[in-house]
C-alpha cells in the first residue's frame, strides 16, 4: 500500500512513502524472532539489556554524526533532488532528448525559490538518466567490442574511466568559461554534470544502431542524435545563460549578450563532438 498520496505542493516529499506496508511485515518478523532464539535468558538479564540499549544509542549517534559530516562534503540532500524521478518523467525526457523540436515551454518551474523536483517538471535536470545512460553506454561498448573479438574485462574499465575523464574535462571547461564570461546564473556544478550526461543516451542509441545496421545505421542515427542534442542543449542553456530579454527571442544588441550566445552555441557544439569522439572506435 502506498503511503500518503503525493502532494505536488510539497517538494520535500521527494520519494513515495512505502514504509507502511514494509513496516507491518518487518514488525511481525521481529516479533517472532526472540521467541525462537535459544539464548532468551540473555536478553532478560538487565545488565546486557542496558549494554544493548547503550550500544544501539551509540550506533545511532555515530550514524547521525557521520551523516552530518558526509553532508558537508557530498551534498547528499541536494543529490536526492536529482534522483526524484518517476517512469513518466523518464519516458518523456528520453522522448525529448531524441525529438526536442516540438516542445514549446523550456522553462523550469519554481516553487518558492526552489526548483520543483524533476518528477513534476519535465524541464528540470536530473541525474538518473545520465547515470543510467552512462552505464548503458559502457555495456553497449562492451557488447560492440565483443562482436569484433576485441573484448576483455579490462576494456570495460578503460572505457568507463575514459568517458568519465572526458565528462570531467567538459564540465571543468564549461565552468571555466562561465566564470570568464561572468554569467549570473543559478546553474550548479551538478546541473552541468546532468546536462553533459544527457549525451550518453544519444551515444548508446548510435552504437546500438551501428551494431544492428552497420556503419550506415550508426552514422544516420548518430547524425540524428547529434542534431537533437544540439537543439536540446541550446534551448535549455539559452534560458539559463542569456539574460531575460535575449532568451525570449527579442534581438538585444550588446557585446555581452553576443558573447553569451556564442558560449551557449559552443557548449551545444561540444556535445556532438564528444558523442562522435567517444563512439567512433566502437563501430567498424
Amino acid at each position, binding site marked *: 500500500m502506498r503511503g500518503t498520496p503525493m502532494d505536488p505542493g510539497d517538494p520535500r516529499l521527494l520519494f513515495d512513502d512505502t514504509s507502511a506496508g514494509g513496516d507491518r511485515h518487518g514488525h511481525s518478523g521481529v516479533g517472532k524472532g526472540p521467541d525462537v532464539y535459544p539464548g532468551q535468558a540473555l536478553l532478560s538479564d538487565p545488565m546486557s539489556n542496558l549494554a544493548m540499549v547503550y550500544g544501539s544509542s551509540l550506533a545511532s549517534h555515530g550514524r547521525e554524526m557521520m551523516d552530518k559530516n558526509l553532508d558537508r562534503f557530498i551534498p547528499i540532500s541536494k543529490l536526492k533532488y536529482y534522483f526524484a524521478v518517476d517512469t513518466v518523467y523518464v519516458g518523456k525526457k528520453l522522448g525529448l532528448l531524441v525529438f526536442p523540436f516540438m516542445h514549446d515551454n523550456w522553462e523550469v518551474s519554481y516553487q518558492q525559490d526552489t526548483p520543483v523536483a524533476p518528477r513534476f517538471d519535465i524541464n528540470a535536470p536530473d541525474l538518473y538518466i545520465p547515470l543510467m545512460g552512462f552505464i548503458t553506454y559502457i555495456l553497449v561498448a562492451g557488447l560492440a567490442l565483443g562482436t569484433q573479438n576485441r573484448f576483455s574485462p579490462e576494456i570495460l574499465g578503460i572505457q568507463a*574511466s575514459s568517458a568519465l*575523464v572526458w565528462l570531467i*574535462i567538459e564540465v571543468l571547461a564549461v565552468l571555466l568559461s562561465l566564470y*570568464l564570461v*561572468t554569467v549570473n546564473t543559478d546553474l550548479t556544478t551538478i546541473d552541468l554534470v546532468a546536462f553533459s550526461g544527457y549525451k550518453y543516451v544519444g551515444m548508446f542509441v548510435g552504437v546500438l544502431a551501428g551494431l544492428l545496421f552497420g556503419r550506415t545505421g550508426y552514422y544516420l542515427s548518430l547524425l540524428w542524435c547529434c542534431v537533437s542534442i544540439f537543439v536540446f542543449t541550446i534551448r535549455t542553456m539559452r534560458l539559463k545563460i542569456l539574460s531575460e530579454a535575449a532568451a525570449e527571442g527579442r534581438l538585444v544588441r550588446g557585446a555581452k549578450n553576443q558573447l553569451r550566445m556564442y558560449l551557449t552555441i559552443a557548449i551545444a557544439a561540444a556535445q556532438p563532438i564528444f558523442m562522435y569522439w*567517444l563512439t*567512433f*572506435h566502437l563501430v567498424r
Partner: protein
Amino acid sequence: MHNSANMAFTLYALIQTAILFTNAIAVLHEERFLSKIGWGAEQGIGGFGDEPGIKAQLLNLIRSVRTVMRGVFFCTVLILMSVHSYDY
C-alpha cells in the same frame, strides 16, 4: 585498424594533466613576462564600472592560481621539512 586515440585515458592521467596545467599557469612570472605583454595584475583592475571583462577575469584567475599554489607549495615544504627532521 584499432584506433586507440582515447584508450586508457585514466583518472590518473587527468590528475597529472591538471597539476601540470596549474603549474604552468602558476609559473608565469609577474614582472618579467606578464607586464611585458600587458597582462600584469594592475592592468586587470580596469574600471569599477559595469562588470569585469574577459581579460580582467583571466588576469584575476592567473593571480589567484599563483597565490593558491604559493600557499600549497609553502605548506608542502613545511610538512616535508618537519617530516624529514625526524631522520636525525
